[in-house]
């Protein structure tokens, strides 16, 4: 009866994209509103899903749809939602909507005239991206999951390659080659599972908990699938595409990349790799945990050495994703719950951080921390405060969303599942804890350099302003320069469209920080079912 909802979630953005493709002479002015309407409709459908979802039984697959698509391959259009995928679907729809809001309410200003360059292609790209992202979380068929997993590659390639920064070409190529290498290896792993069991149905496969799959084959398949997911997550040492992609991507690209695309990798662990291949998971988990804690520490150390704000946030993602992977590696309900929580929290917090980094870069025309010159709390108190809030949420202050996931992941490592070496995981917990301290350190260092201190006069002055602003006309700039330092051009503080785009994220970070049970109650029952064979 609810089967129409998953279809609508995919059909609405797809329809929007197709209509755009077939109407080459769409009026440019209407485009931002057009994108806003379609992503808004998608968000509305996802909220309907949230409302109609039976919260009493989150372990059950709901709103299920199962239609054959390519019988020759055994590929079915099998979609459905449970407590694990529901928050991610709503998060995706929300972030995409906010990105469109940021673009359209900001008009030509947002992202440095970003929307004015090729707006039709941009709206099209973002809508196709949304189809792929939501589809990945809905898919309950191994090949269908793979197809959606791949759909995001081309739009993201164009998002970075067409609207990105100076080094965009190299970054976009690196992104697509790296992630494709991961996903073809994953495809081989999925086909291996299929060749052995003869079904592609994730529901059936995870219900049988790896029955009929010999241990050696499970390990091989887990490694293959894991590599594919780990590239996307990204896990150290497969993360090197991430900093470049984030640095060069436009603001909305970074937000969606960090907020949603990385989650597709971690979601795959929870949905496919661990439930379908439990014995493989037990065998590989110590290694996964080791890479995870190395990632945590490596990410933190790399952040300490960063001078570029966007690069710093990108590396912080490597560290946060390390916590998520550590949570999965424990194979306990606590740890996996923590991982899923951290997943959503990271999407909200890092999404906000990249919005902020984009805003800073737009105002200062650089995201190099030394050149920002400090004192943002004095010059732009509101932007400075939101930045402080996001950074503190990201470093895991109790009471904000970033805390619970990482705490639970570490707690899971304290008592890992039977069959895993406890001593090793205790060591991981200690190292992870140290990493959390380092995380706090680099965020505080960043804040002290950017938001605190005395504002420096010359560097803070923008090099040039956008042509839409009256102050920025060359004649006026010349007169102000002659008037002396008293009439300096001060960049605007938070603008209204920015506030509109950011407020929901701030509210949700606070909400999940103060009331973690909201998310945990959704994910606990399905996690227990999925881990059935292990714990």
């Amino acid at each position, binding site marked *: 009866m609810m089967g129409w909802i998953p279809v609508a979630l995919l059909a609405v953005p797809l329809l929007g994209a197709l209509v755009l493709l077939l109407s080459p002479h769409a009026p440019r002015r209407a485009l931002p509103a057009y994108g806003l309407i379609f992503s808004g409709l998608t968000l509305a459908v996802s909220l309907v899903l949230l409302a109609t979802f039976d919260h009493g039984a989150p372990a059950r697959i709901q709103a299920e749809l199962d239609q054959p*698509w390519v019988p*020759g391959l055994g590929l079915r259009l099998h979609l459905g939602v449970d407590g694990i995928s529901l928050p991610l679907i709503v998060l995706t729809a929300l972030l995409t909507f906010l990105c469109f809001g940021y673009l359209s309410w900001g008009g030509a200003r947002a992202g440095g005239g970003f929307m004015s360059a090729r707006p039709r292609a941009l709206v099209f790209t973002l809508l*196709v991206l949304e189809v792929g992202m939501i589809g990945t979380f809905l898919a309950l068929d191994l090949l269908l999951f793979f*197809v959606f997993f791949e759909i995001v590659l081309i739009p993201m390639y164009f998002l970075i390659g067409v609207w990105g920064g100076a080094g965009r*070409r190299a970054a*976009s190529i690196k992104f697509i080659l790296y992630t494709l290498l991961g996903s073809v290896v994953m*495809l*081989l792993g999925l086909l291996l599972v299929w060749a052995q069991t003869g079904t592609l149905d994730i529901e059936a496969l995870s219900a049988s908990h790896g029955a009929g799959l010999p241990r050696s084959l499970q390990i091989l398949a887990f490694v293959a699938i894991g590599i594919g997911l780990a590239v996307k997550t990204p896990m150290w040492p497969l993360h090197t595409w991430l900093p470049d992609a984030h640095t060069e991507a436009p603001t909305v690209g970074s937000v969606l990349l960090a907020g949603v695309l990385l989650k597709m990798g971690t979601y795959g662990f929870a949905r496919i790799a661990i439930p379908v291949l439990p014995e493989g998971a037990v065998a590989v988990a110590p290694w996964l945990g080791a890479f995870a804690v190395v990632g945590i520490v490596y990410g933190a150390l790399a952040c300490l050495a960063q001078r570029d704000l966007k690069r710093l946030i990108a590396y912080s993602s490597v560290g946060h994703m390390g916590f998520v992977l550590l949570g999965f590696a424990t194979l306990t309900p606590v740890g996996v719950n923590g991982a899923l929580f951290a997943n959503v929290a990271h999407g909200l917090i890092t999404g906000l951080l990249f919005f902020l980094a984009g805003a800073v870069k737009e105002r200062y025309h650089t995201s190099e921390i030394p050149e920002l010159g400090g004192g943002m709390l004095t010059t732009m108190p509101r932007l400075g405060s939101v930045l402080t809030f996001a950074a503190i949420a990201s470093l895991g202050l109790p009471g904000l969303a970033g805390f619970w996931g990482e705490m639970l992941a570490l707690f899971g490592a304290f008592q890992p599942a039977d069959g895993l070496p406890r001593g090793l995981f205790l060591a991981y917990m200690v190292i992870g804890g140290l990493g959390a301290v380092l995380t706090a350190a680099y965020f505080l260092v960043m804040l002290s350099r950017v938001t605190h201190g005395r504002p420096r006069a010359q560097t803070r002055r923008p090099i040039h302003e956008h042509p839409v602003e009256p102050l920025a006309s060359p004649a006026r700039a010349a007169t102000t320069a002659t008037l002396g330092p008293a009439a300096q051009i001060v960049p605007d503080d938070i603008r209204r469209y920015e506030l509109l785009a950011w407020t929901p994220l701030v509210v949700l970070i606070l909400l999940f920080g103060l009331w973690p049970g909201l998310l945990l109650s959704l994910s606990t029952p399905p996690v227990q079912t999925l881990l059935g064979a292990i714990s």
Partner: protein
Amino acid sequence: MIQQIDFFAISPPLVLALAAGLVLLLDAFLPARPRTRSGLGLVTLAGVLTSLGFVVAQALRGGAPQSTFCVPPALAGGQAQSAAMCSFVVDGFTLVFAGMVLAAGVVVVLMSMTELAGGAIPVGEWYFLLLCTLVGAVTLPASRDLIMLVVALELVSLPVFALTALKRYDGRASEAAVKLFVVSVVSTAIMLFGVSLLYGIAGSVHLSRLGEVFSGRQAPTVAGAELPAVVTVGVVLVAAGFAFKIAAVPFHSWAADVYQGAPVPVAALLSVVSKAAGFAGLILVLVTGLAGQAATWAPIVGILAALTMTAGNLLALRQRSAVRLLAWSSVAQSGYVLAPLAVAAIARGAVGASMAYLVIYAAMNLGAFAVVMLVSRTAARNELDDYRGLALRRPAAGVTLAFCLVCLAGLPPGLAGLFAKVFVFRELVGGGAGWLAVVMAVNTVIGLYYYAVWTGRLFAPVGGEASPATYRPPVTAWLAVGVALAAAVLFSIAPQLVLDMTALSAFG
């Protein structure tokens, strides 16, 4: 003795041959005017479409395979033996290949009409040769004896030399024709040597009988019950001969020069029709004729497939000319088509996977060539830089090319290419050729690089002046693009169509 000929069975090549003769006559007697040029094109197109209609009619008729040119019962020693020894058989395999070749032929004829509008190339000869090639390509998959196979394969190859050289006073074209001629003649000689060895051992040219002899069910004619060691030589030589046609390593080096030198429609013909004919022959010989010798040829085919895809992809990485890039990419794609044949003896669906890949490849590659053809009208050198901003100047052409390239790379939204690769991967993983699957996975990534760079260039803004598109391409050019794109989109939405077609033809 009078042979009973089933004219319905041989109607597709017959119609093409009649059309070829008609075109030559019309060209000789009609005045040389621009209208004659397009008229001859239309006659050719009608011939190809009629032939395609007969293929569809044969497919709809269903039932048992039709066969003709059989050995008479009196000579074969019984009705059953006679039915097994036919030279021309129309079954699912034949119909899929004939249908694909003719559909590709329609696109190539449409492209030719654009190319010939320039007037530098003699029209009557062009269409005559083109139809002759198609006759060969339609006959080849129906051939079930070695002589017929060789004759049909030569019928595919010989007219192509002339087609390549028809652009007179063009150095590159002449060079390409000579290269193609030398390579092809050498490969034919090698293959004939192999064929004669096989004939000598088995004492028959019919594939069904060859299959029985080489699988040990029937004694060879030469002394002794054991098969002599020379069988291996025969198998390798025949495989090598076909490897030339499909441009597999180590016989791949002619591809780029010939594709670049030839007119674009001929390059498209080579990359789809001629390649499909080569694969049809290879599958027939290996899977029906030499199934018993799989232990010999399967590892060779596997290694050749791995080398072919790797070499093609690596060579394509540094290309600047669009046609050269497509040439190497088609070499790489040959490797993907070849790969499942390495497990054909074990996995039942392997031949079907190969054919499905080939059908999808034909659609997406022709789409790419049709757009390249369009661009070649305004940019003589046809380098990748000429495609900068194509999606802005000519949105339809740019988006089509982007879609076809993404298809070739095997990524969504080009789902056809993605599923084609999944078919192949599935057979490889299921057939236990994991190493080949890994090689192919790495190759997919290498291939993505050049496809992605080219696709990115289509959308890159043009620096400086935005040159308005002054050249108006004829409607046939757009039709060619449209037909190929429609096929690629259809296969993306409903890949099951391809699977249904190819599953019918799978060998037992």
